[in-house]
């Protein structure tokens, strides 16, 4: 019999979505609802001399104009508490909220926001990460040392978090290498760009507030509202209607507290809906720019002997979750290769730009883009085929990483072989085409997560979970896992989720963790229900539970298919008498041992638990005269453990590949010297269209991981965007003979590199 995962299972929220009847946050309207609009900083860095809200308040239809003075004196931030809800004294980036208006219509709210008079004293703008770390650079946060911070964050001035990884003796190894290659790469800021912009609605009932929010992380949003408004967490309920994508851009706590405060001040529900341009410059979750310097020593037989790296990541004006990025980027600067001598130093520089935060595989696509191009340069330095160089150095079972983690059975080498086979590496191509290859890796994130499973009297089931669906397929994987435990069909289950008053705590749609952790929770909950069903079945079938199995919607005696009772019958009998209810959280899988004694600034990334390995091979055509590239074909091979939900996993890979193509070729923010983004709109921040996206073939190395999630699975959501830009960079360099050292590799940059022009 086919397992549930192999049977075609239509996503439970699908009909709601294709009919257009499903509601997203901005689709909701409350009786008496007001509309919020923010007044943002008029400078990227300035001292606020005064704020005059009189004209705004006098505008008919305006209910409230809120500033820093109207909310509790609280600083917040997951690693460094450097933020406030509203600008206080100083604005540090263009999207900083100075004031918020609640009015009867969005138009009046906008007009009122514009009528607020803010008097500023402009301050020097720090927009370049290297300048930010230079001696004597103006401080983005004069009072940085006074901020509370997690004790593990190493900070100094504009360096908000510094991390190093040292293993072996890099100097000696470089001196003894047959060839040494040193390169520098620069990645520009880019964005998550979910098609649904941020939206939030708050409504109070007594001293409790419900916020409907387009967040990926409802439990973290709940904590944020409670912390910043100084109310008990139990007084805050976050509900997420259908969520129109996130990709990290809707992680962290964003604007739920602002609308909650406005709703409390006005005794009205208040709705905030972002425009696309706000989506670009305001939220604290864009993909950070990086400066990446790499130096690698290699022997003539292709053995990598040393890697030195210096990385500076752009934190932007405030620390969202980026303080763990330097250590994560340092791990990616080594990459999925055996390198016995490593020294990587990574910093996170404050600048007067939009704050960085986790966007789908944070730090990895940029760092991997540099490392994978660098690998091709290293291969060229010894006259070796770049795939062969990777083949000789890629991690395999028993190898140790830069932090001395000994690897379990992994499929990294298989991904390389399968990707190059799928694309036909080595085949004859037209002279303007080439195949580029990139490898990458990404950790799984084990952590707490909670769920309940109950069976209803009619034999249907309900999964009550803290998990968050944002297009990733959680609504598919969880019923598949529960159904397998209970011998039922995934279609038999409804899901009650995205409501912090219902499910158990979960980290949200982030870190590729939903199926990994919540899958474990729902299986544990389902096993409790299974035990309850077996107990009922013992009575019905007069057999002991060891002899009973749950299959095809029935409890039946093993070996005697005619002795069975439908689960619907058992559920009906239990109704009103016994509760068929299970709860689960489960212990996260064990974390592999590491020896990180050579590391500083440790924030957990020294361990790559249940790592996913990825190889992408791309065939690219380059118009040498214009630098315009078109990706014609992609082969993607992933070792992400056992695949639980094939349709969902394919969707993640296909979407991640195309996001990676966008990052590689066109997606980048252009920031002026004034610290402002110059292309905060979709005509000039260009996503890939359906006409651009190539056919993608996929090969999963479907092998269980001992440190994995359910059934030996690993995270699948983030890895697909990791190696694509590097693979494309390698293909471009093969066609043009010139490497592009800045991301995105726009047509102009490809052209400039190919023609030796300074771009």
């Amino acid at each position, binding site marked *: 019999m086919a397992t549930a995962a192999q049977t075609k299972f239509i996503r439970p929220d699908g009909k709601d979505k294709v009919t257009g009847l499903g509601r997203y946050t901005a689709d909701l309207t409350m009786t008496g609802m007001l509309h919020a609009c923010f007044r943002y900083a008029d400078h990227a860095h300035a001292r606020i001399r005064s704020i005059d809200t009189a004209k705004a308040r006098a505008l008919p239809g305006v209910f409230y104009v809120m500033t820093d003075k109207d909310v509790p004196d609280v600083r917040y931030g997951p690693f460094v508490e450097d933020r406030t809800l509203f600008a206080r004294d100083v604005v540090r980036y263009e999207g900083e909220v100075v004031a918020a208006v609640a009015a009867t219509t969005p*138009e009046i709210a906008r007009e009122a926001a514009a009528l607020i008079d803010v008097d500023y004293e402009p301050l020097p703008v720090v927009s370049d990460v290297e300048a930010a770390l230079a001696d004597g650079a103006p401080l983005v946060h004069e009072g940085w040392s006074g901020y509370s911070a997690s004790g593990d964050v190493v900070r100094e001035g504009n360096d908000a978090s510094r991390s190093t990884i040292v293993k072996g003796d890099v100097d000696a190894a470089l001196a003894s290498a047959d060839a040494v290659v040193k390169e520098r790469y620069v990645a520009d800021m880019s964005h998550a760009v979910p098609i649904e912009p941020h939206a939030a609605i708050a409504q109070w009932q007594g001293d409790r507030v419900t916020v409907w929010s387009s967040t990926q992380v409802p439990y973290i949003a709940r904590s944020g509202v409670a912390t910043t408004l100084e109310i008990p967490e139990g007084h805050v309920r976050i509900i997420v209607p259908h969520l129109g994508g996130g990709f990290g851009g809707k992680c962290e706590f964003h604007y739920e507290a602002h609308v909650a405060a406005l709703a409390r001040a006005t005794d009205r529900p208040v709705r905030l809906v972002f425009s696309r*341009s706000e989506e670009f410059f305001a939220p604290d979750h864009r993909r950070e720019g990086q400066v990446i310097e790499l130096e690698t020593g290699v022997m003539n037989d292709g053995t990598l002997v040393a890697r030195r790296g210096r990385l500076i990541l752009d934190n932007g004006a405030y620390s969202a979750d980026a303080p763990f990025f330097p250590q994560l980027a340092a791990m990616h600067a080594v990459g999925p290769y055996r390198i016995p001598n490593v020294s990587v130093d990574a910093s996170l520089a404050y600048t007067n730009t939009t704050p960085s935060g986790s966007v789908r595989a944070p730090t990895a696509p940029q760092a991997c883009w540099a490392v994978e191009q660098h690998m091709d340069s290293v291969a060229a330095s010894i006259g070796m085929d770049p795939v062969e160089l990777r083949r000789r150095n890629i991690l395999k079972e028993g190898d140790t990483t830069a932090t001395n983690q000994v690897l379990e059975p992994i499929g990294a080498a298989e991904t390389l072989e399968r990707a190059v086979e799928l694309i036909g590496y080595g085949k004859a191509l037209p002279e303007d085409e080439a195949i580029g290859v990139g490898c990458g890796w990404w950790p799984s994130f084990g952590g707490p997560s909670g769920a309940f499973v109950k069976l209803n009297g009619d034999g249907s089931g309900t999964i009550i979970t803290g998990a968050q669906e944002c297009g990733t397929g959680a609504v598919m994987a969880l019923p598949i896992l529960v159904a397998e435990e209970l011998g039922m069909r995934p279609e038999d289950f409804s899901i009650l989720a995205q409501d912090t008053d219902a499910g158990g705590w979960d980290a949200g749609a982030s870190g590729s963790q939903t199926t990994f952790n919540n899958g474990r929770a729902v299986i544990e909950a389902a096993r409790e229900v299974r035990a309850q069903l077996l107990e009922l079945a013992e009575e019905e079938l007069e057999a002991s539970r060891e002899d009973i199995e749950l299959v095809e919607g029935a409890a039946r005696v093993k070996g005697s298919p005619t002795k069975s009772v439908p689960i619907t019958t058992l559920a009906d009998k239990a109704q009103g008498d016994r509760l068929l209810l299970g709860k689960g959280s489960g212990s996260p899988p064990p974390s592999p041992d590491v020896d990180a004694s050579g590391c500083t600034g440790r924030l957990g990334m020294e361990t790559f638990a249940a790592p996913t390995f990825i190889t992408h091979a791309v065939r690219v*055509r*380059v*118009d040498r*005269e*214009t*630098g*315009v*590239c*078109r990706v014609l074909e992609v082969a993607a091979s992933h070792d992400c453990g056992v695949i639980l939900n094939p349709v969902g996993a394919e969707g993640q890979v296909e979407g991640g590949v195309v996001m990676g193509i966008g990052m590689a*070729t*066109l997606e980048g923010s*252009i920031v002026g010297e004034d610290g402002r983004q*110059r*292309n905060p*709109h979709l*005509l*000039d921040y*260009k996503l*890939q*269209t*359906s*006409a*651009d996206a190539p056919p993608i073939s996929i090969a999963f190395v479907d092998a269980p991981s001992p440190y994995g999630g359910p059934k030996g699975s690993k995270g699948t959501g983030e890895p697909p965007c990791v190696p694509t830009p590097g693979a494309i960079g390698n293909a471009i360099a093969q066609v043009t003979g010139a490497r592009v050292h800045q991301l995105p590799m*726009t*047509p*102009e940059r490809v*052209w*400039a590199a190919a*023609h030796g*022009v300074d*771009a």
Partner: protein
Amino acid sequence: MTRGTYLEPASLDEALRLLAEHDGAALVAGGTDLVVGTRQGKRTLPETLVAIHRLPGLDGIAEEDGALAIGALATHDAIERSELVRGRWTALADASAIVGSPATRHVATLGGNLANASPAMETGAPLVVFGAEVELRGQGGSRTVPVEGLWAGPGRTTAAAGEMITGVRVPAPADGSGSAYVRLEYRRAMEIAVVGAAALVTIGAGAVSDARVALTAVAPTIVRSPAAEGALRGREPTAEAIAAAAAAVHDAATPISDVRGSDAYRRAMIEVMARRAIDVAARRAAGEAVPIPATMTVGGTR
């Protein structure tokens, strides 16, 4: 957005009367420039809108006295699909076929494109090389201006208050002609010209007897390149001759730097686009069926 006044005249005469009566009134057809610009905050919507999208008789695409007559309300979709345009005024089909998305092309009109006067507009350069004339009508009567005379700068036209564009008359190219419009684009959809070039090449007895070259997004308006045209005339349309002509376009190109490209890149690219446009035009003149749109046949996004 202003509460404003919306007027929908039933006839051209009524439209002209309303335009004259309401100072500052704006015409709206497809809305793809006017309404989008308002939503982006570039401008507020004018107090009075005169909606002309349903005016009868202004969306024609027909041959009249040997010339192509296109009504101001003809959509890019209709132009792109017109066998008449594709056959003899091919460069215009090349341009209309790559405006925005299918949805844009279904509502956006040629008249709107001309009136918006963007130096990056796709249909401008083709109309220039064909020597098109724009018909402007006001309450006092009508006049025609050469299409190059319509634009006064980015977003500005020479149309007087109360005048509207009613149509375009495009003379037929001489026998033995071919034309093409090619732009630099970064994606295969939803693009706007970074730079672009149109060419009309007429070949007689193996040599170029006439040539017109016009350039998009390298000057405050669409401009012709007399030097490139001069370099082609009388020459056999060899690769060398075409390259030499394209290299001459810098007489007319004074590009700026913006988020879509630097001036240096635009300068280099306008030469490439001009060469490709001339090349396709010459091939079409010689009878070769280069598919429409030419950009997606000879460009990096092909």
